[in-house]
């Protein structure tokens, strides 16, 4: 037992200090010099000054130094040369904490003092680490290039013999990829638990499947669904690809906190929200902070206002040569890939700019041969200046076309998928500031001088607009005024437009084909191949209808429509309770509609329709979250080849039908076989248990049938049972009043 304090004899003082070996403790508690020096920085490149000038220089430096951290005059040490006549041109500064020192390095390194002096600011420990002799080899050793490793074929799924499409389903904790079968249940390709933490996303050409995690983003692909790339972005919320899949943008709501020594991220990324990555190397190219929209950050009671973020904030040009971000009200910053440098070293100033969109395909303007991309943007009315819509050519920054507009309360920009048109949906208000209607200003980009066609006389507010992909027709949905205090949203009308027939190759004026009133629809989903479209009601509690329309119906044409380039026909309607999402497969043959648990908990699952609205399959799935078709890259067939396919369509469809038929009959056969087996098995089991039971009953001396089964046996002698029923019928009813 160790002696306690009281038991220690005060006389018997411990005096053997010398004998005890403290070396282990000393080692443990030794102040690590390098760690203690973390608060020091070294400033190089200072002007050489005489002792009399020194104080002035130190004061001048201090102003800069204290802007990022706390230090004092006596903590700035500027050594003089041996003669004491002149300073050495460098200084040591001690800050209060290593963090301040790090911030100073970050902020002040490379700052110009005047025209001749630019200071280099480094941590003292870094100088110790790298600056000492022998720390860095004098001769250049080329880096080791790792041996070539063959990657999996990333586009393997396109080689499917039956040309099937894939889709991903996220339900419960599982993410599964399936082959879509034209008949029967989808065939599972892979299914993994906890593959993602929030959602999954395909890259634009379908090469990768993106999974989201707290630590960052991962890309998966190839026939084994192995991990191909990992992008570390703590707390990432959203992700966006460039159209060619070479770059990826990740965004987190909270600014990143990067500690020194992070293998992927550098201090450059600390405090940023966006990172733009190079997919091939999985290295960050440049990072940015979120730009808050202008306006108050707090409401009247001082609560912070939640601002909607614009997504994607970084918009890619169709060839991914540029990515642009708008600073609302001020201008657009265009960055050039792959270096992510600001084009011409400055942002494009557009006062008041509210929104912009890149053209989605390389533009083909009349008489323009040079390479260009187009940006469409709009600015609101400012003072006495009218609102403006502009088309700008990049990289020349020439304004191709502008149009002045008046009484504008809002505008939305809609490019047609081939950049042939851009439609600006303009919400107009009267002088009293009450919104009265919508105009469509359609810029005909391909025609000489970019003429603008105006479609007006739209009485109500347009809530949705969509161009036909690769076509020149469009649909818009208008809604009546919202009645105050009524939970039911106003009825909507769906209007279909197409160009008039004109001679030659030109596109005629846009004309209304038809308006369907008293609908609830709010969503337009065109087939990716055009012609067919689903107009639907999503995220609505009362109605959930899907209308399947054909713009080129092959039947009789209405006399009044003979001048139009469309023959509109409703092919079918369907009903999917609680539908939240609609997704066309990339071939335009199937439409998947789903009810996601993210939006509500009722009847989650999916329906699969063909393009004409025939229900092919429905599957209720517990905790169904997401459905997404795997996109396909652009076609490799030349125009001639495609024409050939179209010409020989009959021959091809005959072949496909044969395959389908064979598949169907073999599937049917399998089902029948399985049923036959089940029935045989069941009957055999029944026979066995019945025999066993009978034997057991007889052994126990009981009758063959139990009492309860005996009750059912109708006695032969009794014959048919007679059931007597009494009916009472009231023939007449009298009511007599007795005085």
């Amino acid at each position: 037992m160790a002696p306690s304090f009281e038991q220690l004899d005060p006389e018997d003082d411990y005096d053997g200090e010398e004998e005890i070996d403290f070396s282990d403790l000393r080692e443990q508690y030794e102040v690590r010099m390098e760690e203690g020096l973390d608060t020091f920085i070294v400033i190089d490149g200072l002007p050489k000054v005489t002792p009399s000038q020194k104080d002035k220089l130190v004061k001048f430096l201090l102003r800069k130094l204290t802007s990022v951290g706390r230090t004092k005059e006596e903590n700035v040490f500027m050594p003089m040369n041996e003669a004491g006549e002149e300073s050495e041109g460098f200084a040591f500064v001690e800050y209060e904490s290593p963090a301040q020192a790090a911030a100073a390095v970050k902020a002040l390194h490379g700052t110009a003092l005047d025209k001749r002096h630019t200071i280099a600011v480094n941590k003292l420990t870094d100088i110790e680490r790298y600056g000492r002799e022998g720390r860095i080899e004098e001769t250049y050793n080329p880096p080791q290039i790792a041996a070539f490793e063959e990657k999996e074929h990333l586009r393997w799924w396109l080689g499917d013999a039956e040309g099937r499409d894939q889709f991903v389903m996220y339900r419960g904790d599982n993410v599964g990829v399936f082959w879509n079968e034209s008949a029967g249940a989808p065939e599972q390709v892979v299914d993994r638990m906890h593959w993602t933490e929030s959602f999954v996303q395909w890259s634009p050409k379908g090469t990768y499947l993106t999974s989201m995690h707290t630590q960052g983003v991962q890309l998966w692909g190839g026939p084994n669904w192995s991990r191909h790339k990992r992008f570390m972005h703590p707390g990432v919320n959203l992700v966006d690809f460039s159209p060619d899949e070479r770059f990826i943008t990740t965004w987190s709501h909270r600014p990143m906190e990067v500690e020194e020594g992070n293998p992927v991220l550098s201090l450059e990324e600390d405090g940023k929200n966006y990172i733009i990555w190079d997919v091939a190397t999985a290295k960050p190219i440049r990072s940015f902070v979120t730009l808050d929209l202008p306006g108050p950050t707090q409401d009247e009671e001082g609560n912070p206002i939640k601002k909607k973020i614009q997504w994607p904030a970084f918009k890619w040009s169709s060839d991914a040569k540029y990515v642009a971000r708008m600073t609302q009200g001020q201008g657009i910053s265009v960055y050039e890939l792959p270096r992510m440098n600001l084009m011409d070293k400055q942002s494009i100033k557009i006062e008041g700019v509210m929104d912009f969109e890149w053209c989605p395909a390389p533009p083909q303007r009349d008489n323009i041969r040079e390479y260009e991309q187009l940006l469409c943007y709009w600015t609101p009315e400012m003072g006495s200046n009218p609102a403006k819509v502009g088309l700008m050519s990049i990289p020349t920054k020439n304004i191709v076309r502008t149009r002045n507009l008046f009484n504008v309360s809002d505008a939305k920009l809609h490019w047609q998928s081939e950049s042939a048109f851009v439609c600006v949906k303009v919400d107009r208000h009267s002088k009293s500031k009450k919104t009265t209607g919508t105009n469509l200003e359609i810029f005909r980009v391909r025609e000489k001088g970019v003429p603008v066609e105006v479609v007006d006389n739209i009485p109500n507010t347009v809530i949705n607009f969509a161009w036909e992909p690769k076509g020149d027709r469009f649909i818009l949905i208008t809604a009546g005024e919202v009645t105050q205090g009524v939970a039911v949203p106003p009825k909507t009308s769906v209007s279909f437009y197409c160009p008039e027939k004109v001679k030659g190759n030109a596109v005629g004026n846009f004309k209304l084909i038809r308006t369907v009133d008293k609908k609830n629809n709010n969503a337009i989903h065109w087939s990716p191949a055009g012609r067919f479209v689903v107009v639907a009601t999503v995220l609505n509690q009362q109605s959930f209808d899907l209308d399947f329309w054909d713009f080129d119906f092959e039947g009789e044409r209405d006399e009044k429509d003979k001048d139009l380039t469309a023959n509109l026909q409703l092919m079918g309607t369907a009903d999917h309770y609680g539908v939240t999402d609609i997704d066309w497969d990339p071939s335009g043959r199937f439409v998947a509609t789903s009810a996601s648990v993210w939006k509500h908990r009722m009847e989650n699952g999916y329906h699969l329709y063909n393009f004409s609205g025939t229900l092919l399959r429905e599957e209720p799935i517990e905790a169904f979250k997401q459905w997404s078709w795997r996109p396909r890259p652009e076609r490799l067939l030349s125009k001639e080849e495609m024409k050939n396919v179209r010409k020989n369509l009959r021959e091809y469809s005959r072949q496909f039908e044969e395959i389908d038929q064979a598949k169907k009959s073999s599937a049917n056969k399998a089902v029948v076989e399985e049923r036959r087996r089940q029935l045989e098995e069941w009957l055999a089991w029944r026979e066995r248990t019945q025999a066993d039971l009978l034997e057991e009953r007889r052994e126990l001396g009981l009758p063959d049938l139990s009492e309860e089964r005996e009750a059912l046996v109708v006695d032969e002698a009794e014959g048919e049972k007679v059931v007597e029923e009494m009916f009472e019928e009231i023939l007449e009813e009298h009511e007599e009043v007795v005085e």
Partner: protein
Amino acid sequence: MRPILLQGHERALTQVKFSKEGDLIFSVSKDHLVCAWYSANGERFGAYKGHQGALWTVDVDPSTTLLATGAADSTMRLWEVRTGKLLKTWDYPTAVKRVEFSEDGKQLLALTEKRTGHLSNIYVYDINPDPEASQTEEPSLRITVDELPRVTVAGISCLSKYIVTGHEDGSISQWDAKTGELIHTAFSHDENQLVSDLQWSADRTYFITSSKDKTAKLHDTSSLEVLKTYVADTPLNSAAITPEPTQYVILGGGQAAMDVTTTSARQGKFEARFYHKVFEEEIGRVRGHFGPLNYVAVSPTGHCYCSGGEDGYVRVHHFDPPYFDFKFEVEREREQGLRF
């Protein structure tokens, strides 16, 4: 055919049972009332009054002389079917959740609820089928279930050989009906999804269990092996087996009663679902209730079935001829094969 609506209860139905000849229907409800009805036309035959609490369960003996009922007033009562006379009352510390006669009608099982301070108990009494005779007070067997999770349903197998119980954790147990020894436990349903019903085939050699895990399973009585599984899209409250030669099972359920007010009838899935017993495929649904189905029962004759709902109605459906004619191709093929 148009269903017959039995309107007599004011609160949710808890169990409905056919007499063994199929001519009478006995229904119990939370309104303290036991009713008997003619299955052919839905006319009320009579009521058995006396219980002081919500009724949970009812059963009738093979000769339709004795009727046993169990209720939340912690009693099991025995009645004469014909006269409505109360013959015997057994008192317990907790509610009676299940009563069942053995197939010969000579034994009666009672299951009491597990409540604070009291465990689930299974009692078996020897019953004298004569309504004039006095019935025993003491059970011939008493099983106190202390080591297994709460018992929700129980039944007696063919030849009164086993007692089978369903538990709140989704497991099924088999006990020796003579000694009360636990023989075997099978974990058939999803963990912690309670077994809501257990009904026998006509000869009690196999049985069906329904569960909140949205499935019903067919079990072999002696091995507890799962023979078939029927997957529904809603929590199930009850499942019944149609007597041979038809090969169907009927499942009933719907969203839990407490959630019903928040959803429409369409949402609640208040339908009786018919599945093929052997192929496990859904064949059809019968709509009508506007609350979850708490119990489904098939007449031993196989000519009709009835369902008792949370909505307070009993719906009796007599099957139409197509029901008896419907056959899968392999079944038809087999029948023809046997004929020639």
